[in-house]
């Protein structure tokens, strides 16, 4: 292997690693705040990428139907409770938010062919279609089980993952999509070509990570989430509703997922089920960080990206085997160094 290939593979690894790092951060965030191991994280990646691809192909993305269905479910669940409690004033915003806006989105998509929109607007529309799915899923699936054990929440996560995969196939079909590049710029680095898209991914991931850092350090909502992660009961007593924390978390996770998908869609062909493996690689990173440390998780994810990239060169058929076997020594190391005292859970 010469230096050129080395650099090329490194570039590839860092690009993918940056995406895995974003996902790893989202997974750590969701787990620390809600105790949910968010397996469907990867599906948001696929949904984000494929929604954008549908828009660019001039199709109405199926995501909008899911948005409408979930929104209606949320409206019914919360509406019934509001009516029972006689809080009619809150009914209108609930209906507007969960049924009105999705309907508007659907109408807008049918009225105006999205192919005419500039690329940035297509990205925004895709995000608007996918991100609200996060908090809606929290409301419908996780919120009624918020007090359940990590195990039950994990099984729910897997069930949602499975359902979203099936829906993805229904919405986007079995063929993969690749969106056009955001930029055609290209540089040269030590004789190896450096794609503008690669730089974009790394820069965008890095800015997002910095943005998240400021969100958690400087804003009241960020601090509320950190407080909830540290002590759920304590945060609740301080007036931070666990439901809000949960929805906020899943909004962030969905946004990170969808955005990651949009970022890598021009680099890799994304299929309806590609998200699972991408998300799991984020998981391997997150586990390296013990599902608790953000910086270690991010570094771990970059390591996964690099390992994947170099193993695809040496043993491309065993790429996935190598990446997922990495988790074994990681777990072994964590297990031998952990001083975990098992919490009692009902």
């Amino acid at each position, binding site marked *: 292997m010469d230096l050129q290939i080395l650099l090329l593979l490194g570039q590839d690894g860092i690009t993918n690693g940056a995406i895995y790092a974003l996902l790893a951060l989202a997974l750590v965030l969701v787990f620390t705040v809600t105790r949910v*191991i968010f397996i469907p994280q990867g599906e948001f990646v696929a949904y984000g990428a494929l929604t954008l691809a549908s828009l660019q192909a001039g199709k109405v993305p199926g995501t909008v139907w899911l948005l409408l269905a979930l929104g209606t479910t949320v409206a019914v669940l919360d509406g019934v409770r509001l009516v029972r409690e006689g809080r009619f004033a809150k009914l209108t915003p609930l209906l507007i938010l969960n049924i009105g806006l999705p309907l508007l989105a659907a109408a807008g998509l049918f009225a105006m062919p999205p192919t005419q929109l500039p690329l940035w607007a297509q990205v925004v529309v895709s995000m608007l279609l996918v991100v609200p799915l996060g908090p809606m899923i929290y409301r*419908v*699936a996780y919120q*009624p*089980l918020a007090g*359940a*054990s*990590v*195990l*039950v929440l*994990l*099984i*729910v996560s*897997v*069930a*949602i*993952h*499975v*359902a*979203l*995969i*099936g*829906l993805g*196939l*229904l919405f986007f*079909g*079995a063929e993969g999509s690749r969106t056009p590049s955001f930029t055609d710029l290209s540089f040269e680095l030590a004789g190896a070509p450096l794609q503008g898209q690669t730089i974009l991914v790394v820069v965008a991931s890095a800015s997002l990570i910095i943005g998240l850092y400021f969100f958690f350090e400087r804003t009241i909502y960020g601090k509320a989430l950190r407080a909830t992660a540290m002590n759920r009961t304590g945060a609740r007593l301080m007036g931070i509703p666990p439901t809000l924390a949960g929805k906020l978390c899943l909004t962030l996770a969905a946004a990170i997922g969808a955005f990651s998908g949009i970022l890598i869609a021009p680099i890799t062909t994304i299929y309806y089920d590609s998200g699972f*493996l991408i998300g*799991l690689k984020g*998981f*391997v990173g997150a*586990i390296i960080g013990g*599902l608790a440390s953000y910086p270690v998780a991010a570094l771990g994810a970059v390591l996964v990206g690099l390992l994947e990239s170099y193993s695809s060169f040496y043993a491309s*058929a*065993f790429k*996935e*085997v190598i990446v*997922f*076997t990495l*988790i*074994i020594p990681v*777990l*072994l190391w*964590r*297990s031998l160094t*952990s001083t*975990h*005292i*098992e*919490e*009692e*859970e*009902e």
Partner: protein
Amino acid sequence: MMRQLPLIIFVALLGVGPLVLPEFHVTLLNYIGLYAIVAVGLVLLTGVGGLTSFGQAAFVGLGAYTTAWLTTTYGVSPWLTLLIGLVLTGIVALFLGFITLRMGGHYLPLGTIAWGISLYFLFGNVEFLGGHTGITGIPTVSLFGWELKSGREFYYLIWLVVLLAIVSIRNLLDSREGRAIRALKGGAVMAEAMGVNTPRAKIVIFLIAALLASISGWLYAHLQRFVNPTPFSITQGIEYLFMAVVGGVGHVWGAVLGAGLITILKQWLQDWLPQILGQSGNFEIIVFGIAMVLVLQKARDGLWPVILRWLPERSLKRDVPAAEALPKRAPQPAGTVLLDASEVTKRFGGLVANNNMSLSVKAGEVMALIGPNGAGKSTMFNCISAVNPATEGKIAFLGESTAPLVARDIASRGMSRTFQHVRLLGQMSVLENVAIGAHLRGNKGVLAAALRFDRAEEARLLAEAARQIERVGLKDHMFDAAGSLALGQQRIVEIARALASDPCLLLLDEPAAGLRYREKQALADLLRRLRAEGMGILLVEHDMDFVMGLADRVVVMEFGEKIAEGEPEEVQRDPKVLEAYLGGVE
């Protein structure tokens, strides 16, 4: 007989099945049986043990591929490959269990997802395993010269294994090891304090689940006589868990129900959904995913309890057969120092919960540890019993330092305890709860329990538990669910459980809280009798009449430190004690 009737009818129907059913239904039943074997393992792992695995399909694959490769390439006998597959699966399961089970419960499922994916890609990419096309021409199996060529014949072997699996798992759960396994979910701290090796119990159930999956894989390979990677993917692994959860993860028969329901539903949905949706694809997973969330939200116990309502009520066992008493440890002569704790300090981060605490307990005395709420008494208890070991200081039990010991080692040396916040398994009977206390007085293992070779010892354990329940005066509640008792009575059950371990030192954390006057008197009498028998008792209690009437010596704690020690009368006059309790006397 009435109790067994549904089972007899079920087995009879199973036996007649292949004689009357069309080919398609027999095939379906074969698959249901194969899936049920895996799901039974998941019931044990998830429903009973509170752990889970998404990688069971990979274990099935390991069993299937082992036999497929060895029988086709080397012509090894299928019966030998069954054994080799089991050994291989066992090694992998032990390794995975070892590296994940020491950590939080969610690392096992995550580890199994990763392992499931790895193995799936490995099957698909290794050349000698046929890559994605798989291995064909796997030989048939012969049973006592009877060659199981058709699905109809193979059916009997599959369902024999299903029934054997169910019976042995049920046997296991109704035994000493079974009680330890049932304590894993929600009672691990208590189980450890009663001498149960909980990490080992977790690995054991993971191992059993993996071995069952491997057997299912072996059967699958010789039924199909062809294997490829597809049925061993992570998706299938998830489906196995769905079967267990939908059927009823807390009941072994739920596994059969779940396997049946999911398999039939899948057939049906695979026919209909593509027609309705106008596309081809595995859309049944949408329905399964949503159904799964609903089951977990609305009926966490799955659908088996619904069926149970139609079956004749199972009468609980109402008698404990007499059995020879268990051997007791040699009593310590009165006055021997049992426990000697000196300068014990316990820190939680910056908070010092115990500071330089010293106390000792002798055989044949009641030592009371008192102090206002938050003084650090329960922390001291946890340090002594190594439930939450001390940061600094020396604790010696029977002259041996407890520093290198974990809670279960200390239990095995003759110290037993109760908990301030009652730790009973509410669904289990009082008798079974108390029998957990006697865990270390038996030694029959998992295999003996599954094969019912443990009955003599089991009878002695239960008889001992019954004796202790009688001793504490709860004979009438022996067969009630522990959770149904009043809180005060539950505390007494904890004492019976501690006594069942035949301790020489008993640690009681607020045993009289929630008791009525007469019950307190009865408890005091019991403790006096135990003292007279030479037992050392360390008592934390808030009821001063109770303490002062009973204790030989008293240690008073405040803010984590000892402020007084002596005989009850002395301590009661101590100005520092009066100040701690009454806020100062001017």
